[in-house]
């Protein structure tokens, strides 16, 4: 699904990611944990194709294709979805209208006919239940006046409608209370499928109590310092990030637990 090899990324000349190697197979859920400033969000942005990040070395294959050569909208149409840490507001554009445009852009790319209004509404209704999204929010402008929790829920709702191959969740848990966290996690769990992978970026392990990952990676100082099973997350919780020393050697593929 996703194959990151020796990825080096700089912003305005300073190196943020210093050789990331990560392989994510179909159906897997990987978590990326790490202290602030370790490069977690940079990784998410680079995968989605945000401008302003210079890839100085390495490559990323997405379903066997060169991801970094694609425009951001092409990545999205081919099935890469980023749940934003800070979802953007688009005043005056209703959530439904926005999502319909997005879905139809993706369907067009897949050679499927556009959904008409009725079919779209049926689909949307069904998906709102998945994340318990208030249907009122569909009529409201995209993210405008949404609470923090509503914004995050809206991201997962979009994920549910767009049905990507790879979903990158960038600190989706930040700013959520425990109930909202549970709802969002439930939504994600229902979307887990043999042909869909997740890359869950988080600072805290509590999200991983609900979304149980296959592999946990610890990102420190732009490198994956350690990889392991979900118990690694618990260990981190207990002992803190200082426990994981940034390793001096960049090393090849990290050992799996």
């Amino acid at each position, binding site marked *: 699904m996703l194959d990151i090899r020796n990825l080096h990324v700089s912003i305005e000349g300073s190196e943020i990611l210093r050789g990331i190697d990560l392989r994510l197979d179909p159906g897997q859920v990987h978590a990326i944990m790490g202290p602030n400033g370790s490069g977690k969000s940079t990784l998410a942005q680079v995968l*989605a*194709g*945000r*401008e302003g990040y210079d890839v100085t070395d390495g490559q990323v294959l997405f379903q066997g294709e060169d991801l970094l050569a694609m*425009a*951001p*909208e092409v*990545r*999205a*149409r081919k099935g890469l*979805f*980023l749940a*934003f840490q800070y*979802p*953007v507001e*688009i*005043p*005056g*554009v209703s959530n439904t*209208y*926005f*999502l319909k*445009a*997005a*879905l139809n*852009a*993706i369907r067009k*790319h897949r050679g499927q006919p556009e959904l008409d209004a009725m079919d779209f509404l049926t689909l949307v209704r069904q998906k709102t239940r998945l994340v318990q999204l208030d249907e009122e929010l569909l009529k409201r*402008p*995209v993210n405008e006046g949404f609470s923090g929790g509503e914004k995050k829920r809206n991201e997962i709702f*979009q994920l549910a409608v*767009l049905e990507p191959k790879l979903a990158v969740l960038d600190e989706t848990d930040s700013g959520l209370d425990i109930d909202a966290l549970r709802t969002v996690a439930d939504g994600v769990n229902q979307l887990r499928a043999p042909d869909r992978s997740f890359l869950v970026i988080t600072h805290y392990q509590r999200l991983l109590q609900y979304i149980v990952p296959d592999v946990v990676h610890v990102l420190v100082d732009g490198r994956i310092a350690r990889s392991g099973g979900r118990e690694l997350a618990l260990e981190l919780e207990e002992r803190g990030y200082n426990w994981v020393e940034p390793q001096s050697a960049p090393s090849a593929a990290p050992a799996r637990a």
Partner: protein
Amino acid sequence: MTETPQTGSDERSEKTRTATAAIEEMAERGYAFGFVTDVEQDIVPPGLDEGVVRLISAKKGEPEWLLEWRLKAFRHWLTMEEPTWANVTYAPIDYQSHAYYAAPKGAEDGPKSLDEVDPELRAMYDRLGIPLQEQELLAGVAVDAVFDSVSVATTYKERLAELGIVFSSFSDAVREHPELVRRYLGSVVPYTDNFFAALNSAVFSDGSFVFIPKGVRCPMDLSTYFRINARFTGQFERTLIVAEEGSYVSYLEGCTAPMRDENQLHAAVVELIALDDAQIKYATVQNWYPGDAQGRGGIYNFVTKRGLCAGRRSKISWTQVETGSAITWKYPGCVLKGDDSVGEFYSVAVTRGYQQADTGTKMIHIGRNTKSTIISKGISAGHGQNTYRGAVRILRGADNARNFSQCDSMLIGDQCGAHTFPYIDVHNPTAQMEHEATTSKVGEDQVFYCNQRGLDDEEALNLIVHGFCKEVFRELPMEFAVEAQKLLEISLEGSVG
């Protein structure tokens, strides 16, 4: 042509008297030398004097009172200075270098077929989905005389006439309904109003006249007819709409398609009058030539539009989508004289390239319980400069007047500018005023968010702009709104990415 500044009214009237005498004398001489031969010419040489004003009036076969009115306007115009307060810059206009009368161009002047029309213009027509016949008309192609315009117009006219509605060119109205024209002409925008209104009053070429009798609801948007005839309206249009007690009319002016026009200077006047319980909705889409990439050659559009809510519970709404012209100077306003009357202004103004727009509205509250709403959306891209200028005035007798103003500006890129000048002048303590203003930049993060959901840069921008303008577009009749939206998309093409 400059006049000594006036110092007192006595001196002024003295001066006017002398001037009048001189003019009369000149006019007589003029006749003696045969204006008749001149009347047969189709184009008057550049320059403006009383002879030209008389000539225009004579060519149109106007009654004496209208000629007098034009002459008064012209004499007043001579005493005025071109306004310089607007936030626009352009090279000084030499009013003597313009021609002030050209007969409607004969078909023989235009291109012979669409093949001769600028391919870029044609591409635009195609994308706007304008039918071929209309394309020919807009581009000034020599169209077969049997073309629909005559028959369409006739069909419309018959249907409307049954209801007692008058909908005609201004010239026809002067001939067929002189009493109505005389009664209302200049009653909302007097020729003394401003420099450009005075100029228009002196030399106006043609325009439209609408009269809706008491209690009649006009059954259709008055648009198609106008659109088809747009080619003949010329550079100094004059429109007068009168809605009698309890009547309703929706009027659509302009066209999304860019029109061929060799006249750089445009100064139109629009007057609306709504009597008790009458309602007038006036929508404009303006897409005159904005000039080339360096901003050369575009239309200068100096427009005076004003509606008078003369009656109680009357209502006037202006909706405008301004995307064209090099210079736009335009403030459609409402005078809320009748108690409980309502004025509305909804505007989207787009400037790109080197376009400059200084536009907004004036709401004058005179009657009690009068209400006004202002929603203005300015979009600037490229090197465009967009200014909102608005005045809300609550006069002493306007108890419980209410105003809500919202002025939003959107910037695309970092070379453009947005400016807001809201003037508020309140003379009654019971007034309620609300003013909201925002400026936003189409953020890279907004575009990226859309990209990440599968939309490309153009689609993203269209979506964002559409959302921004929504409150205005929903005031437009459905078809017009769709066209306007499309026009905006084409206008802003290539602004990001």
